[in-house]
């Protein structure tokens, strides 16, 4: 937890993402044009969110195996930071959609109702709501061990039910969002060009490391609080 090389790597990768991502050449596609650079930000947010949710579930399972309260704090903080990344993903997506999906002849806000009905957006909203419910459930229980146990159980159940919401359902229903025929930005054959991939993968790693960094700070803070409460 206290090693620093990965923090330096995170900063370096993010500086690379911002400079190279905004300056290097990108393919000009119809309707997308320069907004394609948002790939380095919008898609990375969702990647980071999913990875952090997965880490949260792994910690919930570890809690149920050991009943060590430390893992419960891990699970909670990873879920909180993942929610933040999800909200940022929505924000960057809204900016992207206002340039590509919105009706260019009207103010972008007028297209909101047509855009917001997209199954992929609803799926992602469900994912975030499920984890908001996780936080509400946690705060509604007073006893510390009981809280940890029940929220770990809900965390695992919610993660399992999340998969249809964000991986299966959006691929069955018709959607404007790319990704109905596979995994966008991961498909090697006919997807993003080579030099975009050179920035995209480091960007995913950089953002995820940043998320882990923020989480470790929050974990250390709440472990200290816990210690203060016990002594």
């Amino acid at each position, binding site marked *: 937890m206290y090693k620093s090389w990965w923090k330096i790597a995170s900063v370096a990768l993010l500086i690379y993402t911002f400079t190279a991502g905004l300056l290097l050449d990108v393919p000009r596609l119809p309707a997308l044009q320069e907004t394609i650079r948002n790939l380095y930000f919008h898609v990375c947010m969702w990647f980071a969110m999913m990875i952090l949710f997965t880490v949260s579930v792994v910690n919930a399972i570890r809690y*149920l195996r050991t009943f060590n309260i430390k893992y419960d704090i891990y699970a909670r903080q990873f879920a909180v930071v993942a929610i933040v990344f999800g909200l940022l993903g929505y924000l960057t997506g809204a900016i992207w959609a206002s340039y590509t999906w919105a009706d260019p002849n009207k103010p972008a806000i007028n297209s909101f109702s047509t855009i917001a009905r997209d*199954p992929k957006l*609803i*799926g992602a909203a*469900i994912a975030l*709501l*499920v984890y*908001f*419910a996780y936080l*509400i*459930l946690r705060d*509604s*229980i007073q006893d510390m061990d*009981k809280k940890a*146990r*029940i929220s*770990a*159980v*809900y965390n*695992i*159940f*919610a993660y*399992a*039910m999340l998969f*249809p*919401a964000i991986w*299966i*359902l959006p691929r*069955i*229903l018709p959607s404007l969002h790319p990704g109905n025929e596979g995994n966008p930005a991961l498909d090697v054959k006919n997807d993003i060009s080579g030099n975009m991939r050179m920035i995209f993968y480091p960007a995913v790693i950089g953002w995820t490391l940043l998320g882990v960094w923020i989480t470790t700070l929050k974990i250390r803070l709440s472990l200290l609080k816990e210690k203060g409460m016990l002594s």
Partner: protein
Amino acid sequence: MDEPESRVWNGLFWVIQLFICINAVAKSFMQESKGRMLYFYSIASPSDFVLAKLLFNSLLMLVMSLLSLFLFTLFLGNPMQKAGQFIGLVLLGGWSLSLVFTFLAAIAAKAQQNAAIMAVLGFPIIIPQLLLLMKLSNAAFAPLLIISTSTVLLLIALDIMVVLLAVILFPFLWKD
């Protein structure tokens, strides 16, 4: 009053199903007094107990689904083109809803403010299944659309996953 068109009928039907399920199933864990839970605890293993609850609630919800379908056709008319398939979907849907809400009721019963927390926990989790069910049952109202078998299998797989998760995770909720 006019009879609603088939899409509205379908939407209304599933929303009513959802609320029937919440009210019918949510009670299953809240009604038990502490003493009776202790009694169950001493005579049965947690996985037997949760399986029994799941089974009972499934049966209850199947009966309720058929009842509400009967009342819907009685009061709102019958726009079904493929009645047999739609009844099958209704039973499948009722079963899925009852399984998910049984497990959520077990969680909510442990967090004291039962009814409110149940809705908060349940709605986001059940929306994907409801969307799938509505999409499937729309096909039962149009003569030319066919109900996709893969989606039905997906729902069944989800149900099996819920049962497995309930059996694995319930022992952790059980002991106090």
